[in-house]
């Protein structure tokens, strides 16, 4: 019933699946940056509880809190000196936005009502001005929504 060609096909399909699953397992072990738990924060309470800005936690660790709004990020520029681990927390005060640091794996959704947390461990080679953009449609000036992340080594 199962002839040779069927076997070849079956085995190749299984190999592809195993490789993909293996790569996911590897990513999960070595640190998949997008946090899945979310902090619920109703917009009314946000002003007191969520302050945009950079906190230097020492030893190359930073916490960067960002507000996403129609149409921009606050702060619109941050500078980090020799970052090893950056915890980025983003909160939208209006509609859905995206947050993607171009050229990295940092890529997540920002949903109003929830705080998105991303842990970013920039590679040593990351240096200079990085472009971070909103990559989810958020209204008529969506394409104007971006910020700069400056990395100094």
């Amino acid at each position: 019933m199962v002839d040779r060609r069927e076997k070849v096909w079956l085995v190749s399909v299984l190999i592809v699946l195993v490789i993909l699953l293996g790569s996911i397992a590897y990513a999960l072990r070595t640190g998949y940056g997008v946090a899945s738990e979310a902090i619920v924060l109703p917009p009314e309470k946000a002003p007191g509880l969520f302050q945009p800005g950079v906190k230097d936690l020492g030893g190359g660790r930073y916490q960067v809190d960002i507000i996403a709004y129609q149409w921009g990020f606050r702060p619109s520029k941050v500078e980090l000196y020799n970052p090893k681990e950056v915890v980025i927390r983003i909160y939208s005060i209006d509609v859905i936005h995206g947050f993607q640091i171009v050229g990295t794996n940092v890529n997540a959704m920002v949903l109003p009502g929830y705080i998105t947390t991303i842990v970013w461990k920039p590679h040593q080679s990351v240096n200079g001005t990085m472009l971070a953009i909103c990559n989810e449609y958020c209204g008529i000036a969506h394409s104007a929504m971006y910020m700069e992340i400056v990395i100094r080594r």
Partner: protein
Amino acid sequence: MISERTFIKISIAFSYILLAIGGLFGLLQLVSRTPGAPKLVDEPQYYAVLTGHGVFIAILWTAFFILGLAVFVISSELGKPFRRSLLALAAVLAIIGSVVAAYPIVGGLLIGQPTMGAVLYTFYPPLLAHPAFYIGLALVIIGSWIFAAAVFDVFIRWRKENKGAAIPLGTFGVLATLIIWLEATPGLAIEVIYDLIPMSLFGKRVDVLLDRTLFWYFGHPLVYFWLVPAITAWYAVLPRILNTELYSPKAAKLAFVIFILASTPVGLHHQFVDPGLSISFKMLHTVLTYAVALGSFLTAFNIVMTLANAGALRGGDGLFGWIAKLPWRDPVFSGMVLAFILLGVGGFGGMVNASLNLNNVVHNTTWVVGHFHTTVGGAVTLTFIALSYLLLPVMFGRSIASMGMARIQPYLWFIGMMIFSIAYHIAGIYGAPRRTYDSSYGGLAPSIWDPLLFIGMIGGIVFWISGVLFISNVTLTPLIGKRVAQLDGASLLRNGNGYEKATIYDRIGIWVLIAIVLIVIAYSLPLFEILSRGLSPVLCITPEGLKPFG
């Protein structure tokens, strides 16, 4: 009350109109979004046009063609009349619903208020459109349910008289399509009726995470609602044009069963980077996604073997000799096979999208645009185009107006699509965003984006021209095509060769039950997570940033 034939003609003609308008929108956005190319629309218009493109082409062109095709297959294979009142009601609701939903988009563009309908075809709240948009969608959903009732009514009557008989393959594909639709649409219906219509009328606050989850509960099976009819055509029609048998009809039914089982409990793979959904549930959906992919891998094997056998029968020898012996000049054949190849490209990209970690690189980039143009814009649309060349002569008793045009058209579509989608895939890997009017970002954008998007534009223009050839051909056919004897639909579909005994695959009820169990497992967990954390409802806001209820 309308006959089956009238229903098919109306729904297919309507689908062509939608394809034509949506295709025009596609060209406008293609050129406008390419750096250095002329801006044909401004930014607010761009998003209205993009909404129209997604709604008219991706959702409605496919849906209306599928309705016509379903009636054609069912009435040809089962030879039983439909209840005409149900068909008429379904057609009226679906068409009125489409026009109502189109009003904020097209009307808004015409009266200079493009933001009336600029929420894109995923309409994530709290972005707000004119209420007509959501109400029209609800009408389309209700119409589609009545349509499904009309088909199941015919099927149940057929089954009573044919106890113990296997379900013909084409019919099996149509039933699988509708079952997937019925599994999926409750999610959309709840989102639209419970949240979005009240949001747009009275300013109800909605939870964005819950609504995204409901949307993607629907959104992934939606792609199988598009794909399964195309696969059905490959299974039921391709062997017929080649005068051979399908390599394995059993494997074909197995593939359909896999689609019934696993096309719904996978929607979280669209929400990998959403906050608030646990990694374990995302992984569960990843694994189930790989399970649905098995249905596609099975199909790929079955079709290639069928083609190879047909080529070998015609004297092609060696590992690749069979390829040259196939009827590449027949647009019905070439269209379907090129569509099949596009699914191969799209399928591997899809495996990347569905992998939790790789998704991070491509999420919301132009990679995704490349992906769904090879799949729904390539595999599905090109198959429906090929089927049109077969169906129109049957339905109208006229031969295709220009066979010369028909012959080159599928190749142009294929070549254009390959150029477009490869360029967009690569640009996506470099991070170029989708759904974006202007990707210059004050000069900070990587310079590699521009040439890639430009090459993409060239490819897009090529398949857009191919679309114009198609639309003009199908418009002219009923008007100036040569009259030919009207064929009987049944002769176009393989299978009529007598009675076959039913097997385990034909016990559809069992598969539906298992599917429901899988859906409950895969979705009760994330829904529990969302609800037990406590919702966080927010106020709606228009695309220009106004709060009409605030």
